[in-house]
């Protein structure tokens, strides 16, 4: 049997999934206290009960998200895992693969090799989480981290960026989960790491 995902990648994947779930659902509750746009998130899919509870969840889970992310990135860089899986990536191959994926013709025979559409999506998700963390730091500490906030158009700009990175990560999760449902064996490999007959 072939190892598709190393243990550290599997553990950080599921910790990240939990952290993102808590951050997004508590974040929706926080958004509802002072909406940026003309809509609210339905209460039933938010976490925290009230603004103070949501903030407690958000500021607790942020440590989980950031530390877990640091471990994943550090491992990915020093083990060569990130470079092996995500590179090389060319815009041409990416567009070609996205088009064939939409026609339902994208091959995913070897689960340990990512096609260009996957590489783009996973790299994009990593960048979105980095964007969420940086804009989140700017919102949390617009004075202490003024340098970060000023790059994003100060406090209000950071709020907008935080919101749109959230939209991006939610879209990623929707597509990601849809793909797992289409290719169910990928779900097991993210738990066991192995692929039967792989």
């Amino acid at each position: 049997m072939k190892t598709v995902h190393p243990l550290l990648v599997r553990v950080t994947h599921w910790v990240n999934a939990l952290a993102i779930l808590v951050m997004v659902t508590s974040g929706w509750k926080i958004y509802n206290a002072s909406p940026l746009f003309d809509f609210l998130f339905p209460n039933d899919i938010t976490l925290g009960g009230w603004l103070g509870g949501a903030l407690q969840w958000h500021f607790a889970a942020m440590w989980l998200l950031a530390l877990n992310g640091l471990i994943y990135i550090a491992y990915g860089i020093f083990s060569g895992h990130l470079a092996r899986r995500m590179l090389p990536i060319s815009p041409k191959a990416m567009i070609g693969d996205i088009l064939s994926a939409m026609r339902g013709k994208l091959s995913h025979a070897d689960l340990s090799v990512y096609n260009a559409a996957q590489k783009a999506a996973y790299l994009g998700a990593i960048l979105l989480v980095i964007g969420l963390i940086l804009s989140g730091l700017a919102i949390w500490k617009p004075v202490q981290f003024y340098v970060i906030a000023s790059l994003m158009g100060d406090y209000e700009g950071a709020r907008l960026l935080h919101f749109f990175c959230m939209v991006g990560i939610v879209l990623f999760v929707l597509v990601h989960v849809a793909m797992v449902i289409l290719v169910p064996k990928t779900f097991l490999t993210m738990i066991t790491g192995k692929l039967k007959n792989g």
Partner: protein
Amino acid sequence: MDNKLKNHEGVLLASIERRLFLKRGLSLGALSLLSGCDLSDQFTYDDRVQKMLTAMSRWNDGAQAWLFDPKRLAPEFPVSMITDPFPFNAYYGEEEVRIVDSTDYKLEVGGMVREKKVWRLPELYALPQVSQITRHICVEGWSAIGKWSGPRFSDFLQRVGADTTARYVGFKCADDYYTSIDMATALHPQTIMAFRYADQVLPPKYGFPWKLRIPTKLGFKNPKHVMAMFVTNEDPGGYWEDKGYNWFSGS
């Protein structure tokens, strides 16, 4: 902007009502998300989760105190960026704003200070003043820029002989609001006793006779209608802090 702010008040009032029975900061959604546990265990489970969240909030107080740079100034803005009208916000509606009588007003200064005395408004107005145009950030997320003027709080603390090695300064307000801040923030050069807003005497809705303006903290840490202040080593808590908002809440 106006409509948006009205909306916030509605949301805030609705959430205050909810808070009365959801003090634990946990929704059923949270439970169903995170456990498949038996309903009879729910209360102990709730308590354990709340204990963990409260412990994390205390940890975040420490992290923020560590991050706080006493010399770093909050950004200041040009007059053209001032938010007009500046939003009213409190734990009650604008029609319930407290009117403090200026002739009767006495500020009580107590706790770990050399000069425990009462200050009248003319004495306070006579102190040298500074101005700032800074961003007020609400815990709800919105922000607004305004101009405040008044003496530096650090100067006042020095004048009353406050023990600045103490940990906290606590405040009691005419509207039964109360809060407290760390000494490092109390001594920050932009922490001022705001007697004026937009070059006018601070109107009742913004906290007449004065509000402690702290541009390095969220709005709810800026007490209005301050009637008494005291220096202490015992954590005095606060109106919202005791309900679950993070105590340090620094910017």
